[in-house]
């Protein structure tokens, strides 16, 4: 058993699926399940691919994969979500199964790889998969814009990687971290770090680099919405977290710029959502704000709760986009006025949507509250009162527009609308809402896991 299988099998399946379109969907199901099961049997640690023994053992040359608890959680989430989302869209978007396999391979690679260039490759693979997925929106210009911005981003990332390589002569992250720490000259790594941060920021929807989001998610459907806002956002946040906590050293003006950008992202995201009337726009802007919060937490070293926040967000956004996009498809408009009274005949869906939204807003009895309170506590512990204030002020705005949305969706306007959700949708909604509810009321497991993850990060830090 080898972590490489997590990447190779989906990739292989993707190739096979091109040959036979018929088995492709089933292949995806099998591979997804396989990956999830496989994760149970894999052990933590480094996996080397290629290279030769001496080099591997002494200098960590060659490509290696790193599987730790952090990556494992991310992988479970990603693979599981892809599987679920695909199951829900099994009938309508069958043709996308090979692309989803590709995306699975790329994202798994992103989360596992320990090699910077390899990372770039996976970034591009997953990026190409993402572009293809968004083509399901039937808005080619938006997709094209996504492609161009994504290409610029990955180019910048590659640029940064190459500069780092030129400076330290290695592409292995662990070695590079040690080298950077040994040199201690942070001023000269500002350029590569900036470039890499921007490159990742494009994919992770951080503020000034995310112009593509509106076009892509603003016209999303039940496949692309959850995939981009849920799966991709989560994966990129995880990756960003790994880079920020392990590799990047934010100091001086870089730290200021990054913090300002992220704080701006939080505020601007929520303010933009406040000014939107289209439901999908509200959701996408809110996810921008959430992504910025996550990044901000990583920058401030609040890791474990950021991880939970990513997971909670991915699950919540999946549900929200599924609900809204299905309704939009049936109604033909995503204006919140047009969707008035959506839940009148869909009480269960309404309930789950409400619970999930409350979790995103960080209200008690739901997981979002526990997470929010804990990361704020940790921020307070390191004296970041200003950041707390920013996050909380943004959360006020967020609360207002979400409540406005929920109330609108619960109470009918002049005309009744009918949207039917089938049982599989409902089942997913219920499971996710229940999960949020359970972890919101019984948060001990979350706090317990706290320590374990931190130790793994220690391992990474120490090489």
């Amino acid at each position: 058993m080898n972590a490489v299988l997590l990447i190779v099998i989906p990739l292989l399946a993707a190739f096979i699926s091109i040959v036979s379109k018929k088995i492709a969907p089933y292949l995806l199901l099998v591979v997804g399940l396989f990956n999830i099961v496989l994760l149970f049997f894999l052990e933590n640690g480094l996996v080397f691919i290629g290279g030769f023994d001496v080099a591997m053992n002494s200098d960590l040359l060659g490509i290696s994969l790193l599987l730790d608890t952090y990556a494992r959680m991310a992988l479970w989430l990603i693979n599981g979500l892809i599987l679920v989302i695909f199951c829900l869209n099994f009938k309508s978007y069958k043709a996308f199964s090979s692309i989803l396999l590709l995306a699975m391979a790329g994202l798994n690679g992103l989360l596992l790889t320990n090699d910077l260039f390899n990372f770039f490759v996976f970034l591009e693979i997953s990026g190409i998969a993402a572009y293809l997925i968004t083509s399901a929106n039937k808005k080619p210009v938006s997709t094209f814009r996504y492609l161009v911005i994504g290409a610029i981003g990955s180019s910048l990332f590659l640029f940064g990687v190459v500069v780092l390589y030129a400076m330290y002569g290695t592409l292995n992250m662990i070695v590079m971290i040690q080298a950077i720490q040994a040199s201690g000259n942070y001023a000269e790594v500002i350029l590569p770090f900036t470039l890499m941060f921007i490159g990742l920021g494009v994919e992770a929807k951080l503020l000034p680099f995310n112009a593509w989001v509106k076009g892509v998610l603003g016209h999303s459907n039940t496949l692309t919405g959850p995939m981009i806002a849920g799966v991709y956002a989560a994966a990129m946040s995880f990756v960003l977290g790994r880079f920020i906590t392990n590799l990047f050293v934010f100091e001086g003006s870089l730290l200021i710029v990054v913090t300002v950008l992220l704080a701006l992202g939080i505020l601007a995201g929520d303010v933009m959502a406040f000014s939107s009337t289209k439901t999908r726009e509200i959701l996408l802007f809110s996810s921008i704000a959430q992504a910025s919060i996550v990044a901000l937490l990583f920058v401030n070293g609040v890791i474990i709760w950021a991880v939970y926040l990513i997971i909670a967000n991915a699950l919540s956004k999946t549900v929200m986009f599924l609900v809204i996009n299905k309704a939009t498809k049936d109604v033909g408009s995503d204006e919140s006025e047009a969707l008035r009274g959506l839940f009148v005949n869909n009480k269960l869906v309404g309930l789950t949507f409400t619970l999930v939204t409350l979790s995103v807003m960080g209200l008690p009895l739901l997981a979002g509250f526990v997470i929010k309170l804990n990361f704020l506590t940790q921020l307070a512990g390191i004296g970041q009162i200003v950041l707390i204030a920013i996050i909380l002020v943004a959360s006020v705005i967020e609360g207002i527009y979400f409540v406005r949305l929920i109330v609108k969706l619960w109470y009918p306007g002049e005309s009744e609308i009918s949207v039917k959700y089938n049982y599989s949708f409902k089942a997913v909604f219920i499971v996710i809402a229940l999960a949020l509810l359970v972890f919101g009321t019984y948060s001990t497991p979350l706090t317990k896991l706290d320590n374990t993850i931190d130790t793994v990060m220690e391992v990474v830090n120490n090489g």
Partner: protein
Amino acid sequence: MIQYASIILFVIGIYGLFVSKNVIKMIVSLNIMEIGLNIFIISIGFVGGGAIAPIISSTQDLGLIFVDPLPQALVLTAIVIGVGTTALALAFAKTIYKTYNTFELDEMEESA
């Protein structure tokens, strides 16, 4: 020296993306940018005065100078990826043209 040239190329690509509104021109700019980047990668691997094949032998000859082979390998991959991206972009360009009958982004009326 060649590094400066490659960075200039990269900047030209960025500039092209900055000013052009035409789908095809953008793809071309993207390619220019990528080429600049690729040249930059190659250039950092070059070590002047090298005389030995870049193969690690069992004897550790530390004094020997050789051109770093890794960037060349990287660049190959980067080119491949670049080609893939370009192909995809062109495919989208085709779709765009089919839908809107134009390549000018300004002339399209897609609500985004």
